[in-house]
């Protein structure tokens, strides 16, 4: 690169440049700033709007159904003539499928990430990472039919008495769906751990596994927790797979082998049906949606506090 003299830097001529901002640059800044502000405001207002509608309709719902029934009923039958509104029925189904998915995805995802970041050669890593990202982009309806038409028959063959619609199949496939996300994001967190840290441990005679387990995973912990939380949120909010594979019969059960209905599946079911606007059934959607919102919010708060506690040890 050659250093060209500035056009206004004539040799010999004393330079007089004001410190004030040139008008043109000031205008340009303005023009950039305005759209950015609008974009930020739009996203804030939509979020606020959604929450407002949710709160309003939920409020309406609890005008007609007392909160204690929502919390204590053990059946969920708002579409029948004899109505019960026990959210615990839907909640248990959501917890069951999400928990099952976590049992599949977290350990496998973490191991895959450790393998990719600490054991795999750069070539393997370069080949696998994009594949993981493609897997993460498969539409969930595909996973739903994969669960119903492929996983369920296998389950039925393995465990006699398994219903066509069941929680286990959905949980397994949700786990498979979020696996690439868990491993890819965790691997990103581990890749960000400086090589010098690993070398320090290797130089003390640590094995590859000791370096991974005692240095890399703890140092990447906040990133790994973030990946886990994102995955759990996706599992809780997952709709297509549970609607297709887990069934639509609200049942309070711990058995993963019978049909159940999750919160999301219920919302789809009612939204797709011919529920009149403003009816009680219609309002249940918002009450369930609110419960779902609070659940994910609680998960987020919980993960924040885990991270905060952890940061004291690993600043």
């Amino acid at each position, binding site marked *: 690169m050659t250093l060209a003299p500035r056009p206004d830097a004539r040799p010999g001529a004393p330079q007089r440049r004001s410190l004030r901002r040139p008008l043109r640059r000031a205008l340009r800044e303005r023009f950039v700033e305005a759209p950015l502000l609008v974009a930020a405001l739009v996203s804030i207002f939509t979020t606020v709007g959604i929450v407002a509608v949710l709160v309003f309709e939920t409020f309406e719902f609890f005008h007609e159904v007392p909160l204690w029934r929502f919390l204590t009923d053990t059946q969920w039958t708002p579409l029948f003539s004899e109505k019960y509104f026990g959210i615990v029925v839907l909640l248990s189904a959501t917890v069951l499928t999400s928990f099952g998915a976590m049992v599949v995805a977290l350990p496998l995802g973490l191991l895959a990430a450790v393998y990719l970041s600490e054991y795999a050669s750069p070539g393997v890593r370069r080949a696998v990472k994009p594949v993981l990202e493609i897997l993460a982009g498969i539409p969930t309806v595909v996973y739903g039919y994969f669960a119903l038409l492929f996983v369920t028959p296998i389950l039925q063959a393995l465990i006699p008495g398994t219903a066509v619609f069941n929680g286990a199949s959905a949980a397994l496939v949700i786990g498979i769906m979020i696996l690439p996300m868990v491993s890819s994001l965790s691997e990103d967190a581990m890749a960000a751990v400086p090589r010098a840290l690993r070398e320090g441990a290797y130089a*003390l005679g640590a094995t590859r596994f*000791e370096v991974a387990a005692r240095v890399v995973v703890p140092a990447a912990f906040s990133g790994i927790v973030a990946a886990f939380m994102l995955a759990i949120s996706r599992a809780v909010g997952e709709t297509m797979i549970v609607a297709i594979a887990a069934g639509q019969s609200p049942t309070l059960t711990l058995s993963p082998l019978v049909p159940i209905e999750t919160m999301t599946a219920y919302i789809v079911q009612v939204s797709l049906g011919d529920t009149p606007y403003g009816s009680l059934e219609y309002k249940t959607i918002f009450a369930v949606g609110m419960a779902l919102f609070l659940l994910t919010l609680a998960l987020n708060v919980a993960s924040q506090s885990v991270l905060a506690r952890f940061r004291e040890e690993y600043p």
Partner: protein
Amino acid sequence: MVNDSASLATGLRSALAALSADRVVARVGAAAGADSAPAFAIRGLSLWYGHFQALRDITLDVASRRITALIGPSGCGKSTLLRCLNRMNELIPQVRIGGQVLFQGEDLYAPQTDPVEVRRRIGMVFQKPNPVPKSVYDNVAFGLRINGYQGKLDDLVERALRRAALWDEVRDKLRQSGLALSGGQQQRLCIARALAVEPEVLLMDEPCSALDPIATYKIEELMTELKRDYTIVIVTHNMQQASRVSDYTAFMLAGEDRAGALVECGETRSFFTNPRDKRTEDYVTGRFG
């Protein structure tokens, strides 16, 4: 068995010595006082980072229980050479190594040599302090734990911290993060961590570059004390330090293709006052690099 491999190695060494008789073989270890067998016998060592050759044909003996200083301008391959002595370089993808490094007569790079075992016996302090994000205590105890020490580590941790001249500064914050220490304290923490596992060799890559004169003095004192039991190789840019603490000095220089080569090495006493090579003289008198 042990005798066998030792005698085999001795035979190998003399054969190699004969091979390279027409080259300048730096037999540092043969000088007065040192155990006659060198700790490291480096023979024709070359190293490539991908296509870039960083070391060319280095042949050097490192005396047992002595301090050997590696000096040379930035980028000439001092760190690279040091890292060859405990097989750290192979953690970098694309590194290729030619030649031989014998440690107490055993080939470090033989297929049956376990790099983990190598690194347990040959400790290292890095150019940049790299404590793990754990407490001061856990940093020092880390090596002990992975080496299978059970039971009370408190005494060992304290001893290592005292030797690294850090104890008085951290005795009240053993539970605080090692990253919360100052840069110089972190470096001494890394020294303590390396000492805690009682290696046979200590490789130190500019250990004092982040330290104040007092801490530097303490570390130099420590090195002098340690050399009764340990072999120490230290990379330093500080000529005074090299002449103060080391028994032997080796001078490296990057050639025209940027590959580092050994120029000269010998007893420190005569190295600085009486360099044999013109380039060494230019460097140590500050007319170069």
